[in-house]
């Protein structure tokens, strides 16, 4: 299979969706810019025309509302927010409108809109240009949330999102844009709600999202060299999420660590661990753990950014703690 970067895989999905479905159009900021959204939208306006690839005023609420309205009128719009932080201005059309529409009208209508937002953090951009807010949407019935970690999933999940028939939030991460991987040339779907088993292992289940899934694979490699056999599950969809695969894995390993590069409180990791606690607590031989951001906004200074963002080493260290490989950090009662 041919190899593409994550950013190129996204662009290819857009191109093929625009080419194959006249109902698809794209609206959002930066779509005609050579740098705004990396290479993930490069020249799509040239290829498909500026009436279907629409760079917009600084009007997140109106563009998102318009995309929802167009979806209700039969189109398959994709609205793009170059940063997740900006999407906060568009919460009403997403949560109050799109997410509720099918239910409010007893399934007689739905808003098949895709809201793509980009996690774009680091680089001393600080609190308002760094946020990963998937947890907001996890909370709300009626909206699906996908977070691809590989080029293959980046393409396949965008196609699935556009064809799903429901509002879907598609969240990609600038820190993954240069990752490469095999991507089929034709358009294909990655099913929403199905996780991917990235590595089989016996000792611990590491469930991760997006960039942290890529980091978890690296961490598992490092752990293997230290004799720890980690199973890595890339969640891919955080709503709905693949509970079956996670439960099955935890029943095998007896240990669960969830890595999500967002705040711990009320987040994806909390949800996964709560579900496992409710349904498979007796399989656990150690306390579950989370690798998330500290419960603080993103700092600016390089000295603070360095300790703010978790990486593969953070995951590896957390697994070692869970397995009591470092005596000092072993919580009483968790040794298996």
């Amino acid at each position: 299979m041919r190899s593409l970067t994550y950013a190129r895989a996204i662009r290819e999905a857009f191109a093929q969706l625009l080419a194959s479905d006249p109902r698809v159009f794209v609206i959002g900021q930066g779509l005609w810019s050579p740098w705004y959204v990396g290479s993930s939208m490069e020249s799509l306006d040239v290829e498909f025309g500026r009436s279907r690839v629409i760079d917009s005023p600084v009007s997140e609420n109106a563009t998102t509302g318009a995309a929802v309205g167009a979806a209700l009128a039969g189109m398959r719009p994709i609205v793009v927010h170059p940063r997740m932080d900006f999407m906060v201005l568009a919460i009403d059309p997403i949560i109050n409108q799109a997410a509720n529409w099918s239910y409010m009208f007893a399934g007689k209508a739905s808003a098949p809109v895709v809201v793509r937002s980009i996690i774009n953090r680091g680089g001393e951009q600080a609190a308002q240009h760094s946020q990963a807010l998937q947890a907001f949407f996890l909370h709300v019935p009626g909206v699906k949330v996908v977070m691809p970690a590989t080029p293959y999933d980046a393409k396949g999940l965008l196609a699935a999102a556009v064809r799903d028939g429901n509002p879907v939030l598609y969240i990609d991460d600038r820190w993954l844009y240069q990752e490469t991987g095999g991507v089929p040339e034709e358009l294909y779907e990655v099913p929403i709600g199905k996780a991917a088993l990235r590595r089989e292992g016996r000792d611990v289940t590491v469930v991760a999202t997006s960039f942290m899934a890529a980091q978890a694979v690296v961490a598992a490699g490092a752990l293997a060299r230290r004799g720890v056999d980690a199973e890595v599950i890339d969640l891919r969809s955080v709503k709905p999420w693949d509970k079956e695969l996670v439960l099955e894995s935890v029943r095998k390993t007896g240990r669960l660590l969830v890595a999500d590069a967002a705040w711990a409180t009320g987040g994806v990791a909390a949800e996964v661990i709560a579900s496992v606690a409710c349904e498979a607590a007796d399989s656990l031989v150690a306390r579950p753990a989370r690798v998330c951001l500290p419960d603080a906004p993103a700092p600016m200074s390089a000295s603070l950014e360095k300790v703010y963002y978790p990486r593969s080493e953070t995951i590896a260290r957390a697994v070692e703690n869970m397995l009591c490989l470092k005596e000092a950090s072993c919580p009483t009662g968790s040794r298996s």
Partner: protein
Amino acid sequence: MRPGEAAAPDRDFVLRMHRTMLRIRIAEEQIADLVEAGEVKCPCHLYIGQEGIAAGACAALRRNDYVWGGHRSHGHYLAKGGDMKGMMAEVFGKATGCSSGRGGSMHLFAPEVGILGTVPLVAATIPLAVGSALASKVSGDGKVSVSFFGDGATEEGHFHESVNLAAVYKLPVLFVCENNFYSSHLGLLERRAADNIFKAGEAHGVPGLAIDGNDAIGVHRAAEEAVRRARRGEGPTLLECRTYRWRGHVGPSWDTDVGVKRKDELKDWLPKDPVARSASWLLERGVAKAALDALEREVRAEVEEAVAFARASPYPGEEELCTHVFHGENGGA
């Protein structure tokens, strides 16, 4: 003098505005070099070319009046009296910065001179400025609030809701739109159907004026009248100050360097340099060239000293990472 009639500007007053503009220009050129050299890494949106607006508008304010800004606010901070060293250290991400290294260029703060915050979410501080004006109305403290924002910010609902709110309650606030004709890579008429931002004032029942933003004296005159109205309890004014940013949207480069082609406009705008304009105004009125040169040397020395201070300052310690999430924790402010 009758109302509406402009007093002849005072030479010393114009000299002070000129000094303000020089401080902004020279500080930003320094920041541009530091970014280029890789020493400053946070996103810096340069105000070069637009200095006349901050200098003119802030010259109409008292020290304790409020100012709010956005991502491109070095100029607002300095013009209102923010400390040069505090800004420079902040841009470096140092603990001695005006936001203690929490914000960088896009988050400046100097409450001692009324800067309640500059933050980069476009239009975010427009309603906040309405809020400080509301506070002044409720408390009767006599202060005026100024919101600085770009042409792009007028595309957010925040702007229209805020002008209406301020209009209906006659709040003491100035909406200063710095129309530099671009929002990142997009020209004004790619984002709106008409070049008429100032008319939003009239539509909301308040005065709206389009003025030359590169003329600090003219900006000051318009701002002074708007401030007077505000203090009299007659409500807000919208000033659309027409100007041009010389550099790219973010960073020290010129637009073409990052692949954005603006029309051939820059060559028309360079001769309208607001700093050169006030310099020639002063020279024509008998200020010696030597005096202006001395002023420039003095400002350069101030900027260099601030850079040295920033370099020598420590970074925030790792123990700072989770402090101040809530105010009052970890020793309060």
